[in-house]
Structures are given as C-alpha cells and as structure tokens.
C-alpha cells in the first residue's frame, strides 16, 4: 500500500476530501483487540461515531481502493437508514468505477436501498437484471437470483 496505492495522487485527493485517515500498527492495543485484528493490511471504514461498517483485508490498488472506500461509506449510510445518501454514493461508484470489484455489490446494495426507500420490488429486479447483464459470474448476481421473479 505504501509503495503503490497511498502515493497515488487520486488516492491522496480522495482521502483528503472524503475521509479522516487513521493509521495504527497491527499490535497497537487496545485497538487491535477491539477490532479483532488478524492480518495486515486491514482497512476499516468507521462512521463519525466510530462504528465499523466495512473492512477489507489485503492489498488494494488505487483503482480498487477508492470504490471500496466509497462502498464503505455507502454501507454506513445504509446501516443508518440514510438511503438517499447511500444511493448517491452507490451511483458514484457505478459511474466512476463500473468495472471495479466493488461495482457488483454496489448494484446489489442499490437495489436494496431502492426497495427500502420505496417499498416497491422493482429496484430489486432491476438490480438482478443489471448484475446478470454486467457481472454474470459475480457472487452478487447469485445472491440477487431470487429477485428475477419479482
């Protein structure tokens, strides 16, 4: 991460604009125990109250780190039932990084947010159809499979 990803100007600009970066050693206590740390690098997205909403383990190149961090922010909004804010972030991922590893989950979560904010099944079916068309072998397409019947 230090050699490739973190020096990337896009990553620096994204983090400076959107996040508070906090870096601690893997053996730093009590944080390592509180977050059940097992391996490095482990990247965790916390909301402003310190609650965890996403974690990744292992190296991420810059083109994957930014959409992954956006997905973490979207999950935070989703978890706190801020569906409009989550949808805005998810649309940003799909617009700016449609081929990233985060995109399939973003499509899935977009469907769920759409359903929860409208109480109508169409967003779920739309999500499945988009996943089937763009990411047919993704695990998220499999998870959305039942929505084809809606």
């Amino acid at each position, binding site marked *: 991460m230090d050699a490739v990803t*973190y020096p990337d100007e896009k990553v620096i600009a994204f983090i*400076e604009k959107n996040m508070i*970066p906090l870096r601690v050693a893997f053996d730093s206590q009590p944080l390592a125990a509180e977050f059940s740390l097992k391996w490095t690098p482990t990247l965790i997205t*916390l909301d402003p109250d*310190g609650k965890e909403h996403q974690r990744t383990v292992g190296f991420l190149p810059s083109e994957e780190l930014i959409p992954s961090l956006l997905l973490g922010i979207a999950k935070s909004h989703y978890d706190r039932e801020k569906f409009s804010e989550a949808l805005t972030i998810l649309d940003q991922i799909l617009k700016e990084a449609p081929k990233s590893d985060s995109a399939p989950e973003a499509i899935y979560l977009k469907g769920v947010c759409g359903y929860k904010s409208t109480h109508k099944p169409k967003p779920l079916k739309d999500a499945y159809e988009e996943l089937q068309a763009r990411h047919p072998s993704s695990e998220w397409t499999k998870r959305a499979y039942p929505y084809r019947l809606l």
Partner: protein
Amino acid sequence: MGKTIIWETKMDGALARAKTENKHILLDFFNPG
C-alpha cells in the same frame, strides 16, 4: 516533493475530526516492519 496522506495516529483525535468535519474514518492497521 509531492503531497502525502497525513495520517492521524490516535483514535480520539480521528473521532473528534470525523465529528467536526462530518466525515468517515479510514482505519488502516498496518505492519510497520
């Protein structure tokens, strides 16, 4: 010399900034080697 990420090193400081700036925190557990 180009810009670099300016990391917080304490959770308390990161949380205070996160609330003030209404931002999420990227917590990176790393191996300093």
